């Protein structure tokens, strides 16, 4: 039985990992950049950022997925399934990462920026070389939480017909009329999250050199 269901579940896990990795690779750097813009932007842009973050955090990711794929074509923008998934996840997770970064940057001693200023560093150098590295270290536990949430949130892409792990599991449950695939699916999620937790703790240790 396991041998029969495993290929489709592993294929599903592959899709899950793909969405996970691409989202993470896109959203975390994007959040660092956008937070810089937010910090340097004047009064004009700030409400725009706040609006974006409120929208992303105030509506379910599932709804955002459906809106981008089913709703945007009515506004003249048609995205493929893959692009819709990536856009929705990246926009959503970037918003969360921005908020995490904002908090972590607030916890960095303002004296650090002043010291940079006295040495003549530009605002960009102060942000990217002095504040951000310290903020990222402070934010690691919160970022880690989001990373694990992301693994599990990928299960939402079923709504666009993508065969991710949970969908593959449901499919197998229907085909073989037993709940066993759910157990396997759970174990696969657990293995993935366990792996990522381990990697995260290694990174945390690595950046705790000072």
């Amino acid at each position, binding site marked *: 039985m396991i041998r029969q269901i495993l290929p489709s579940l592993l294929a599903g896990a592959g899709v899950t990992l793909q969405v996970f990795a691409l989202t993470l690779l896109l959203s975390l750097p994007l959040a660092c950049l956008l937070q810089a813009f937010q910090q340097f932007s004047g009064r004009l842009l700030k409400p725009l950022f706040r609006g974006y973050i409120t929208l992303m955090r105030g509506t379910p990711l599932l709804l955002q997925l459906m809106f981008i794929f089913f709703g945007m074509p009515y506004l003249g923008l048609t995205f493929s399934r893959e692009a819709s998934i990536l856009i929705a996840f990246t926009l959503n997770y970037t918003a969360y990462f921005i908020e995490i970064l904002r908090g972590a940057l607030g916890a960095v001693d303002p004296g*650090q920026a002043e010291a940079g200023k*006295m040495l*003549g*560093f530009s605002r960009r*150098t102060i942000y990217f*070389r002095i504040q951000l590295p310290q903020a990222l*270290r402070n934010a690691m536990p919160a970022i880690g939480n989001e990373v694990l949430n992301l693994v599990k949130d990928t299960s939402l892409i079923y709504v666009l017909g993508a065969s991710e792990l949970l969908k593959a599991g449901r499919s197998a449950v229907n085909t073989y009329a037993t709940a066993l695939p759910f157990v396997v699916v759970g174990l696969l999620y657990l293995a993935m999250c366990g792996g990522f937790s381990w990697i995260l703790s290694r990174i945390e240790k690595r950046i705790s050199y000072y």
Partner: protein
Amino acid sequence: MSCIAEKCAKTFGADPVFENVSLRIDQGEIVCLMGPSGAGKTTLLRCLCGLELPEKGTISLSGTVLCQDGHWCDPVQYRQKIGLVFQNWNLFPHWTVLRNLTEAPVRLKGMSREEAEKKARRLLEQLKIEQKAQAYPNSLSGGQKQRAAIARACMLAPEILCFDEPTSALDEQSALDVTQIIQDLAAQGLGILVVTHDEQFARRTGTRFVRLNELQSNS
């Protein structure tokens, strides 16, 4: 080469911190600005360093004007000529002591990394913490952090060096060492401004002593 503040005024909200303050710091002298905490000494220091903008008055350093009547003039140029050793030093914790020293000259003065490291090691040696070059700031003692911060400020060869409460976190011996370091720097031709409420330290270190209320003219 002297730093001149003329008729400066700074308010926080509706409360004036100081008004009509004038101060001049010349090459080679050690000016100690004293007074109880909360009197506005540190605010004046921050104004002189270009971290705060006074609403009135002019601040300039050997011809470079920092600000005039509530407007910035040339703060970037100005800050290159003045250094500040913060009360809590504000060393960058994620960089080694050496990198704390070299990053600014390499990035902004176009110095090669090699040259910068050579200069940094020489400075650290003078300040007797050369063995801490590769250490991270958090592993340093208060006195060592103080020296690292002084070395970092000196890397950019300022004309004026400011100290904010340099002895507040130091033991007796380290405070004595700081006196020596400051006097050595003045002997090399730097103008020094020390903000402190430590009378004993000021008396043995300074060449001139001022209180904030004495700097205010009534004109």
